């Protein structure tokens, strides 16, 4: 009886609201770009877009890393220092002794997996464990590179400064990353991983190992974090232990902006990529609007609040 009356309510309106909620990250990014282009039409070019979005690539990678952790209802407060560490490894070990550098990066990713296992076995709060971990990453980075410096290996600079035909490089990478992660999360494996965040009990009852799911996601997060460090050092050409500390909060904001939620395994890789790009653009946006760069992170916060407020409004519309 009840079910019938629920079904009877117009599905069309709900679909419109749902669609709007899904498109929110894309709308935010388009609005931002529209304003920039209207202020500075020359930005609407191959070179302009490359400059505007260059720094988005490492942010996107860090955001996707955070997305893996959030997918299993955890939170990673160490991603910023981890990206810094990987950048430092790239600027020193990887350049001077490539084999040792690769080994160090693989070991760092392995530690991520171990931490996932530890959190699962002892049912620990991920926030505190990753907080402790952030000190360890930072310490290791300082040990490897006590003062800012080092040099990026040439192949990284090449990869990050490559100029493909027609499509600006950051956009090309964003599309590849967003699409790749989207397909991975939609694969038969990714379905189980997201299910582990959505209803762990049901998944365990169906015979899946939650430990393996969590470790897999942590390993994915570590890999993406390492790639973020490599991309960052490829752009800046030198390393610094503190260079990516802001990525921790930025990556969380990016995932949330992209439609992800803290619980229930609800993540959206394409949205997260758009969210990360929006947050990166917030800086350039201000420059074009002739607002001092002091307000850059403030603009990021404002965008986050506006999008969250819009989402709250849409959610309420759907409930009604």
């Amino acid at each position, binding site marked *: 009886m009840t079910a019938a009356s629920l079904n009877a309510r117009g599905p069309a309106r709900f679909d419109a609201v749902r669609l709007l909620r899904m498109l929110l990250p894309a709308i935010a990014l388009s609005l931002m770009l529209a304003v920039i282009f209207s202020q500075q039409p020359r930005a609407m070019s191959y070179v302009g877009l490359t400059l505007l979005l260059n720094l988005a690539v490492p942010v996107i990678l860090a955001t996707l890393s955070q997305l893996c952790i959030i997918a299993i209802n955890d939170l990673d407060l160490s991603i910023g220092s981890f990206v810094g560490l990987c950048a430092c490894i790239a600027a020193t070990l990887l350049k001077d002794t490539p084999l040792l550098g690769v080994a160090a990066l693989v070991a760092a990713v392995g530690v991520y997996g171990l931490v996932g296992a530890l959190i699962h076995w002892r049912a620990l*709060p991920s926030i505190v464990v990753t907080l*402790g971990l952030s000190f360890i990453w930072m310490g290791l980075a300082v040990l490897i590179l006590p003062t800012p410096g080092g040099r990026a290996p040439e192949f990284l600079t090449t990869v990050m400064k490559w100029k493909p035909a027609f499509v600006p490089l950051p956009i090309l990478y964003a599309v590849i990353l967003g699409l790749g992660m989207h397909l991975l999360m939609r694969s038969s494996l990714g379905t189980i991983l997201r299910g582990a965040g959505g209803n762990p009990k049901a998944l365990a009852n169906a015979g899946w190992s939650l430990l393996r799911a969590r470790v897999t996601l942590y390993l994915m997060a570590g890999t993406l974090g390492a790639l973020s460090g490599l991309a960052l050092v490829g752009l800046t050409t030198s390393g610094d232990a503190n260079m990516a500390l802001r990525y921790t*909060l930025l990556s*969380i904001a990016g995932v949330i902006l992209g439609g992800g939620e803290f619980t229930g395994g609800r993540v959206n890789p394409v949205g997260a990529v758009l969210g990360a790009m929006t947050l990166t653009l917030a800086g350039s946006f201000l420059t074009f609007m002739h607002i001092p760069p002091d307000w850059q992170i*403030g603009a990021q916060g404002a965008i*986050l*609040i506006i999008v969250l407020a819009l*989402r709250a409004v849409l959610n309420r519309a759907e409930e009604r």
Partner: protein
Amino acid sequence: MITNDLPSPADVAPARRTLVLPVWVWPLLAAAVVLAMTLIYSGGRGAADIMSAAVTFSALFVIVGLGQMLVITSGPGNVDLSIPAAISLAGAIAMKVMDGSNGMIVAGLAAALGAAMALGVANYLLIRLLRIPPIIATLSSALIVQSIAIAYGRGLKIKPPPAFADFCTGRTLGVSNLALVAAVLTAIVLLVLARTVYGRTLLALGQNQRAARLAGTPVSRARLTTSVVSAGFAGLCGVLLAGFSGGSSLNMGEEYLLASIAVTVIGGTSVAGGRAEPLGIWGAALLLFLIVTMLNTFGLSAGVRLIATGVIIVTVIAIGGGRKAA
């Protein structure tokens, strides 16, 4: 036929032994051990200096930690990420309003604390209206406030009023004034937690939000109070820090974010909520400072010190944390 008549392990109640020592003693003991090791290495030289520096620097961490502790106690996953922003903003406002004049100290303090507490109210409203977890609310407000603090404080090279600077760096009866402030706040928080409706509500809320509501405690008011107090304490820390270090700086709050969580958790406050250990924060703050001092004395680099801090946090949580004791 084999039958499994044995009771399942879950039905057998585990024998529980109660610890004799209260939780907050452990970090204090650990701090004492670290201090002893440092002094043995240095042959006992500089004991008084180390102690007084440790107490003074710990005081600032304790003040921030007390606020973070209240937020963490309010339930699983609750953390205040806007603490650094509150510190930077309050420091900048205080210095600007005081403007180096002794007569404006009270006004500056009031303005700074008012701004910080307004941030607390804003955080609460974001949580309520947007139905988002405290972490996201404080994260977004922190970004905005940090920007305000930077824009407002840029180029601000105002020294604190002499009387205020003297207070922040001075001592009374041999104890640094900052430590006295922190001690008074600790005592107040202890009293509030044990003997007020707010304190009991907060502890109940952290243990079980639904049960707290059904027991008729004022849950929403407690959340608001917690949000405001956390921001207020961070603001106070910002003002004192500016007075102590001869002026405010743009990112003076940065190191306090992770540190405030670390001292709270190492101090024995439950991350799952419902159990607060204000005295443990002292032990944890002293411990973290003394470890750095010890490793310094041993001649180890900053990297090793950071790693040691991280290893301690992970070890403490891996041993003590975990499943909520049921």
